[in-house]
């Protein structure tokens, strides 16, 4: 037996390593109940409530995707609106070909992956801050290219075909469910992705890129994977936005405003935690509803809160919650506990 084996077996005898926090089981039950209630919501409340909830789900999905990209992949992008736009226009184009708009939403995610693959080659030539602005320019290029295509409505945008025959209430409920499915899928997707081999690789890359690559992690491949998943999620979100608004406008759908929303939701909620975007989106959504009568002042407030969070609360509100309570709804790390003692840490 070598020294290292001896040391490992001795260490293993003293601690338990598990992948779930103590609080994980009860919180899983609570989340399951919450999901069941959310699924049943169209039967329980009026459609104006579910219609607003669609916006919340879209925000959750977008923020989760940005969190995956920046918080776990270290890729701070200001250009994810490229994929929101491509997703939205995919749904429009597919619906024109006779595909059901609801079926077109997952297909929009696939389209975005196809576009993201060559784009990533270009974008990955930029590092750090320049990646941020570079992705933004790429989004602008996509917008300028789309408005040149006359069959997509040019600069004035286009309406969504293929939904006129469906009953309005039923259409509302279907839109709600597909938005809910999107939000759940992005959260579950992040969770499964990060618990696996890729998650471990990503966190190593995020913490120290050179060290990660020296122990054999293919840094570029890990980052590209995250970029593609994030593009797919944003594309599907763009599709849902189109299905819910029934039309698309190039300036609005390719607007950098989406990036502002994503970034501030994640920063306020807590970057690098799966729970962060969820909490941030709920807060953002509540602010939006509360301050709806004050015009763009809510964006001023949002910007100011974002600046404050970046300066004084770098791990966001969820970081605060976690420090106080140790709560973790989606644990992706490892919990090490000394046997017999209560000391627990990630």
């Amino acid at each position: 037996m070598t020294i290292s084996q001896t040391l490992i077996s001795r260490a293993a005898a003293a601690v338990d390593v598990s992948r779930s926090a103590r609080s994980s089981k009860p919180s899983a039950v609570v989340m399951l109940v919450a999901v069941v209630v959310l699924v049943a919501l169209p039967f329980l409340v009026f459609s104006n409530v579910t219609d607003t909830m669609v916006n919340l789900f879209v925000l959750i999905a977008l923020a989760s995707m940005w969190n995956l990209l920046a918080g776990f992949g270290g890729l701070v992008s200001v250009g994810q609106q490229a994929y929101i736009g491509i997703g939205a226009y995919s749904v429009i184009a597919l619906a024109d070909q006779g595909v059901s708009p609801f079926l077109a939403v997952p297909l929009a995610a696939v389209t975005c992956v196809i576009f993201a693959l060559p784009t990533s080659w270009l974008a990955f030539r930029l590092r750090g801050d320049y990646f941020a602005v570079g992705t933004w320019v790429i989004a602008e290029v996509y917008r300028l290219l789309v408005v040149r295509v006359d069959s997509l409505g040019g600069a004035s945008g286009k309406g969504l075909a293929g939904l006129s025959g469906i009953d309005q209430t039923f259409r509302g409920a279907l839109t709600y469910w597909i938005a809910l499915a999107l939000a759940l899928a992005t959260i579950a997707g992040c969770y499964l992705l990060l618990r696996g081999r890729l998650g471990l690789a990503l966190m190593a890359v995020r913490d120290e890129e050179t060290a990660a690559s020296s122990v054999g992690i293919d840094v570029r491949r890990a980052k590209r994977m995250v970029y593609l998943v994030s593009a797919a999620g944003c594309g599907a979100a763009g599709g849902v936005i189109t299905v819910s608004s029934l039309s698309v406008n190039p300036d609005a759908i390719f607007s950098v405003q989406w990036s502002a929303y994503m970034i501030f939701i994640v920063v306020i909620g807590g970057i690098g935690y799966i729970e962060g975007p969820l909490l941030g989106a709920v807060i953002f959504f509540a602010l939006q509803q509360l301050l709806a009568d004050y015009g763009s002042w809510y964006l001023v407030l949002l910007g100011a809160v974002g600046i404050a969070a970046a300066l004084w609360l770098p791990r966001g509100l969820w970081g605060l919650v976690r420090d106080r309570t140790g709560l973790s709804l989606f644990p992706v790390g490892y919990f090490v506990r000394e046997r017999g003692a209560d000391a627990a840490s990630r």
Partner: protein
Amino acid sequence: MNWLNAVIQGLMLGGLYALFATGLSLMFGVMRIVNLGHGDLAVVASFLALALISGTGLPLWIVLVVTVPLFAVLGYLTQRVLLQRSLSSGPLATLLVTFGLSIVLQNVLLEIFSADTRTLDGGSFATGSFELTGSISVGYLSLTTFLLAVVVLVGIQMFLSRTGLGRMLRASSDDRETANLVGADSRHIYGIATAIAFATVALAGLMFGMRSSFDPSIGPSRLIFAFEAVVIGGLGSPWGTLLGGMVLGVTQSVGAQIDPALTLLAGHLVFLAVLAFRPQGLIAGRTV
């Protein structure tokens, strides 16, 4: 002759882009800050000038003389109060803070001045031009802007290479800790760099305002021009920024000659091409 005209107008426009990009390049070179609020600051300067002119009735040149130093002071304060704090929390924090600033500035302008497009009235100076040949004429304003850009860039270059403060600035940029050890106060020096950057942004904002119309939401698209000029020319070299601005200006101007809808796209495509095939920029300079 139309093509030659497009190239000449593009070169003049490029001067404005270079003037505007100087601040972005300087802040990145010295502090590694990409200021995402850069474009909005220029728009704030335009609106401030507009408000001053309509409020006090002062002529434009006095407003210019007031606005530029005011922005320098604002820049110094922004660096000391806001950006310095974010520097210690890592690169993501600076990006977030400047992006937050951009959103705040845009929406405050929107609330105060509404979404209407405005222009700064430069009088006969802004509309007048002289003829070079029968078909090519150069506007006084474009030529002045171009010369101003050259003067500012030469001035910054001289400041960095010849003065004591410039030397400390370069030292802080190369290695902040060591510069601090030998007596440079990096916080003060960073403040100076940001003050210069803000002053040039204000100047560029006023020139933009006289040249074309502006509204509160135009900042981000202008930031992209500045960013493109910096990357095309090559990071950290004032001459690179001038060259980058001119390449961008000529590309946009020639693109517009082919089809007005191609103006922006042509510029972006040249930027992406430089990114793909010559990521260090046309003139690979040292930092600052």
